[in-house]
């Protein structure tokens, strides 16, 4: 390897790893953030507060209500006899209230009616939709249990959930969050490192040394590509150990995807550093890119649900391609078509971003 490049890598790594705060940012923060995001950013609705209102002695309704609590989605909320069910919802003591027919569920069913009512608080629409879906399944299962064949529908289907059979949201979110963290750390670190050199005056010393523009640029970026890759490996390992997120595809695919992303993000960080005058501006510039990039990446919300203009903008977001890639590799085992199309797009963007960063960097030097 080129002597100058080796010297830069050694210097940057020594500087970065010697600083306790930087070590914490590089290796501590991703694990803490991954854990928090993995736990907090759950799309599963749990602990729904359910109250039941029925007449004493309604055994069938009692069993139906028990199956709600046994499902694990609902928690029991007590209510006094004669208490207004709407008041339970309005006060926030309950998210949903299951009401039995007045004459009792058994008698009502005998008449061929069997209608219960479920009051749902839809001030949180996501939660309300989840309550409705869970309730339908629980009622269907309870009807089949209580009334046998009468409860069976004429058409049946068997659902097989692939890649994430338990439908755990952490399986879906953790790979995306990994991309987000690597993106965040490499962009901010690169942008701030270069701007710090400008602020400290050390940049002038470097550029007045007999080095080519490419040597200076590579010297300042390659160390952060290496650190970004180390971070990517760390978060994959943490995702496996903490959340059990598997890596079903080959590791070389994962490494290629991470490399393509990190070249993009380090180039973006370099570009930001050529525009920013100080470290605060570099940090702000980094976040100005990161927030829309994360929102349009599909980490939290499906890109397909977004307006057309946003979808068009998302195609310029390297994180979107990486999220598709990493979910494909980690959860699906790395389908070749998904791999090469997204990796190709990411590589093209990396070439463009690196070229733009190099051009701006040269302008700054000159």
């Amino acid at each position, binding site marked *: 390897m080129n002597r100058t490049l080796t010297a830069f890598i050694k210097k940057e790594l020594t500087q970065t790893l010697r600083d306790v705060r930087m070590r914490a940012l590089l290796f501590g923060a991703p694990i803490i953030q991954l854990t928090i995001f993995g736990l907090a950013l759950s799309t599963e609705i749990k602990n729904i507060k359910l109250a039941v209102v029925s007449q004493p002695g309604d055994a069938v309704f009692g069993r139906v209500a028990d199956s709600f609590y046994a499902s694990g989605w609902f928690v029991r909320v007590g209510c006094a006899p004669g208490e207004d069910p709407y008041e339970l919802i309005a006060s926030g003591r309950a998210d949903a209230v299951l009401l039995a027919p007045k004459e009792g569920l058994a008698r009502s069913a005998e008449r061929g009616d069997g209608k219960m009512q479920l009051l749902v608080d839809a001030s949180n629409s996501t939660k309300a939709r989840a309550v409705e879906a869970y309730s339908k399944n629980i009622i269907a299962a309870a009807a089949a249990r209580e009334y046998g064949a009468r409860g069976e529908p004429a058409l049946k289907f068997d659902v097989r959930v692939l890649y994430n059979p338990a439908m755990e949201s952490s399986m879906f979110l953790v790979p995306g969050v990994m991309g987000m963290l690597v993106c965040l750390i490499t962009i901010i670190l690169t942008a701030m490192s270069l701007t710090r050199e400008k602020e400290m*005056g050390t940049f002038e010393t470097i*550029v*007045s040394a007999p080095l080519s523009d490419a040597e200076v640029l590579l010297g300042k970026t390659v160390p952060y590509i290496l650190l970004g890759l180390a971070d990517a490996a760390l978060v994959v390992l943490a995702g496996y150990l903490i959340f059990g997120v598997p890596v079903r595809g080959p590791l070389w695919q994962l490494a290629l995807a991470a490399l393509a992303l990190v070249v993009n993000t380090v180039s973006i960080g370099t570009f930001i550093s050529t525009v920013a005058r100080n470290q605060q501006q570099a940090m702000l510039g980094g976040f100005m890119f990161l927030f829309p990039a994360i929102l349009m990446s599909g980490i939290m919300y499906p890109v397909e649900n977004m307006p057309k203009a946003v979808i068009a903008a998302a195609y310029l977001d390297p994180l979107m391609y990486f999220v598709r890639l990493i979910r494909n590799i980690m959860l699906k085992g790395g389908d070749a078509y998904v791999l090469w199309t997204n990796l190709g797009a990411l590589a093209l963007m990396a070439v463009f971003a690196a070229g733009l960063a190099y051009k701006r960097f040269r302008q700054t030097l000159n």
Partner: protein
Amino acid sequence: MGNFSIRTENLKKNFGAVKALNGVSFDFSAGLLHGLIGSNGAGKTTTMRLLAGLLKPSSGRISYYSEGQPAALSELRPSLAYMPQQASLYPDLSIDEHLEFFRELYRLEPEVYARRSTRLLNITRLDKFRGRRAGQLSGGMYKKLGLMCSLLQSPSVLLLDEPTNGVDPISRREFWEMLYDLAAEKILIVVSTAYMDEAERCSRVHLLDSGHLLASGEPRAVLKEAGASGFEELFVRQGAQK
């Protein structure tokens, strides 16, 4: 070692509406210790950065000469060392780590590096502090380390922008003794300073004020011509005339 000299003709540099240099012509001849003297905002740093090729002039020209023949800046670059006014070291790296980093930037052979670093550590008397980080050095030691990094490539042209700014008097004297030793090796040294007493230590002075060149020449000749007993008096008188 090449015998380099630098000349500027009607050099101007504007930063927006601010005229940092307003048509100055210098002759930095080889083998002399030149002092660029002036108060804050006189245009010293701009001149230094223009000479080092870090800025492009708004108009006018800078000519570089090697052995009396015109040369491109790129030819001069491997022999040119520039020490900026701002702290130009890495606080987290030790003296040894700085020297090793600059050794690779200048692509020095191991034996050349060993000889030069030993000599420089002896001259600067920093050899006892080799493991100490730059951020933990005193102001004088810090400047000496900066100079040592610049000198590691054994330059023929040395541009020092206010190297003694904020340094205690003893360290300043040591610093100038080092510069005299270097000047004896016939390298071109340009030192900018706002300390008027340092002007008399130079073999040539160039007095700058608000982007204008007031005078150039040997210190005593300049003072004699201006009828002043010292450079401080000369500048005070110049200020009063404005």
